[in-house]
């Protein structure tokens, strides 16, 4: 481009080179952690151990993909742990009562979608803040679940139920599901009009509305999809163990939100990617496993996880402050 003789023009703002993509930071952190731990304990590098980490992350990462959409839209869902418990129980109960396993799994996913729709309707149309809606949902679902199951475990499940314990082409099934879900959600967020609308509404709901986007539709939609994905996560979770407990999923919401936020999804809405959320979930799982290998007390683990969250949010907040 030729430069016209316009010396009065203000200088161009320079692109900020120091802004590093969160994803690259996470990959570097994961690699560094792997290297350090394996120096102390070479068993860490074992293929089976690495696959273990991936399997243990899978159901968290699938839910984190949904949570990414929710948080990017400017909302939060803290009921995902209770939803996971309910969906897992539904799948298990149905399968135990001779419903074909694929149908039982589908029922769990649909149940998740319905619970997500209830959350979404209350947020989008009754305009109750998401934290309140999902806090209420968290208690109702958990209480209801224990009432219904009387706290009993679901056991004697049919062999076909244990989807997560099997592999396809040498890779454990949950890892396949995680990768496929991550790719689909990534593609949707990047290439679908509605995906773009999620970023727009989370970034500036008023501007989005003036541009012809209906923010309520977007809010409702993200909660429904999140519910479906939690249902899918419940399937991965339930089919991993021989029994399903009625307290299944307790604390799950913390793992999912931690992974998502550490993955660079801004808690203030508007930015973040699914790839980041999956990597964030992986990093947190990996720290957990590393703690075992290094024989560090699990209590440290929670502190480290909390510290990571605060650090990521702090960086995000500082970055925003610099901008405005």
């Amino acid at each position, binding site marked *: 481009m030729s430069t016209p003789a316009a010396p009065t023009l*203000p200088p161009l703002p320079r692109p900020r080179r120091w802004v590093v993509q969160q994803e690259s930071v996470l990959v570097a952190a994961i690699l560094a952690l792997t290297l350090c731990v394996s120096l102390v304990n070479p068993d860490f590098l074992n293929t089976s151990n690495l696959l273990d980490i991936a399997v243990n992350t899978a159901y968290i990462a699938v839910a984190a993909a949904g949570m990414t959409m929710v948080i990017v839209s400017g909302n939060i869902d803290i009921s995902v742990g209770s939803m996971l418990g309910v969906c897992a129980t539904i799948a298990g109960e149905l399968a135990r009562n001779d419903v074909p396993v694929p149908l039982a799994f589908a029922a769990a996913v649909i149940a998740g979608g319905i619970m997500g729709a209830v959350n979404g309707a209350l947020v989008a149309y009754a305009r109750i803040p998401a934290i309140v809606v999902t806090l209420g949902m968290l208690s109702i679902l958990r209480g209801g679940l224990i009432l219904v199951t009387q706290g009993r475990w679901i056991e004697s499940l049919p062999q076909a139920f244990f989807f997560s314990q099997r592999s396809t082409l040498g890779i454990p099934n949950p890892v396949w599901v995680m990768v496929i879900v991550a790719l689909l959600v990534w593609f949707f967020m990047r290439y679908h009009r509605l995906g773009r609308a999620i970023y*727009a509404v989370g970034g500036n709901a008023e501007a989005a509305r003036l541009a012809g986007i209906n923010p309520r539709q977007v809010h409702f939609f993200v909660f429904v999809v999140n519910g479906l994905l939690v249902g899918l996560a419940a399937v991965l979770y339930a089919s991993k163990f021989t029994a399903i407990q009625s307290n299944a999923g307790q604390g799950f919401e913390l793992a999912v939100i931690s992974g998502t936020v550490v993955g660079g999804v801004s808690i203030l809405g508007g930015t973040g990617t699914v790839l980041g959320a999956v990597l964030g979930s992986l990093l947190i799982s990996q720290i957990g496993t590393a703690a075992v290998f290094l024989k560090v007390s699990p209590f440290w683990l929670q502190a480290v996880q909390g510290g990571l969250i605060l650090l990521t949010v702090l960086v995000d907040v500082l970055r925003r402050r610099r901008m405005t």
Partner: protein
Amino acid sequence: MSEPVIELRGISKRFPGVQALDNVSFDVREGEVHALLGENGAGKSTLIKILTGAYQADGGQIFLRGKPVTIPDTRHGLKLGIAAIYQELSLYPDLSVAENIFMGHHPSLRGGLVNWRQMEQRARAILHELDADDLDVSRPVRGLSVGNQQRVEIAKALSHDARILIMDEPTAALTKHDVDQLFAIVRRLRERGVAVVYITHRLEEVFLLADRVTVLRDGRVVGETLDVSKTSQAELIRMMVGRTLDTLFPKTPAQPGEVVLEVRNLCYGRTTRKVNFILRQGEIVGLAGLVGAGRSELAQVIFGVTPAESGEIRVNGRPVSIRSPREAMALGIAYVPEDRKNQGLLLRMNVRENTALAVLRQLLRYGFIDYAAEDRLAKEYVEQLQIRTPSLLQQVVNLSGGNQQKVVLAKWLATKPKVLILDEPTRGIDVGAKAEIHRLMNALAQQGMAILMISSELPEILGMSDRVLVMRQGTIVAELDRAQATQEAVVAAAMGADELHMTLVASTSLNP
């Protein structure tokens, strides 16, 4: 003649990019009402903020009863007896009248507990002085009429034993009855020796209430403080607007075509009241008025943000119903809002995404966003509007104000509108970008677009418009063609000076 109770001498205050006050001197005497007049942005707010201690002056001195003082903050100002009542009331709706009056300085028992009995007694006593015995001091403020809430605010000021009371457009939201009551209170305070600084946009109030009047323009006092009895509405208007039109506007006269937008008896709430106007192809119509006259609100009714409650909108002669921005867009209407950061931009998204936001549906290929098409679109507008950005992927938060504004414009031009509503299109941007936007507006009008431009800058209104509509209190009170539209005529209509004075102004403006 009594001595000034407070006096400002040579006060200056600078904000980045603007000299808000320049060597302003101003005084108020005991037992007088001193009116402060000026257009939007003349420096009135800055002046009262310096008086109350909310801002610190860069230069000049403040004298209280002849002694120099500094007022480091509003708390200190209150201690000195300086209180202000702003247009936006600052009450706590769920606390009682008495609690609101004594917020922050309630009578206390030992140990800091609130002495409720004394607080309510004193609140009643203060309200009695204001002739407002009918107010129950123990009921919450929520649910009181605006007039009563304002009485609570005044009582609050008096509870600090204010000797200097600043009232910022106190009648803006009041009914006729409440205005009368307010005037009675102000006169009563004056009798008691309180010095009142009275800011208003209603000229008739100056003559009804004030003893002296000072006019501010572009941060300076115009002429000197006048006795109200020795001046006229026409003189005051002239003082407010007497600015030279030094900005060059590259106006090309329009060739107006068909009527594209017609609005009949449009109403929404209290802000849009029976608005009527038409907009033709190829013309730029300026919408002038004071802040709060309902201009942006009108734009938002037309654009479906707050859909009309009654009245009719016609596009190309056909009656239409606009219930949402999307419906307005489908009819070829675009609205560039006033507040670019909060209503216009996705600051953390890039130039390309912002440009394409309103037309994403047109950029789909097999149901998904075609990034190449999005790129082409953004590139086209970056070139057409000369948006200076290092790349299409730059986050708009990093662009200058003028370039950000161009991005918002690009977003709306991409919808190929027939009617473009611009709300303060050049506010807060540098002179170069401003001229570019003005040139662009002319070019768009030449191509047949109908443009409705809301602006609080008179020179911009006069320089750019083929016709000027003036709004006041939610309705259009004057329509002036380019030849008739003088600064005086526009201001007179905006402030509601009566017909007699308008003709007077029109005749005097010929021989300045």
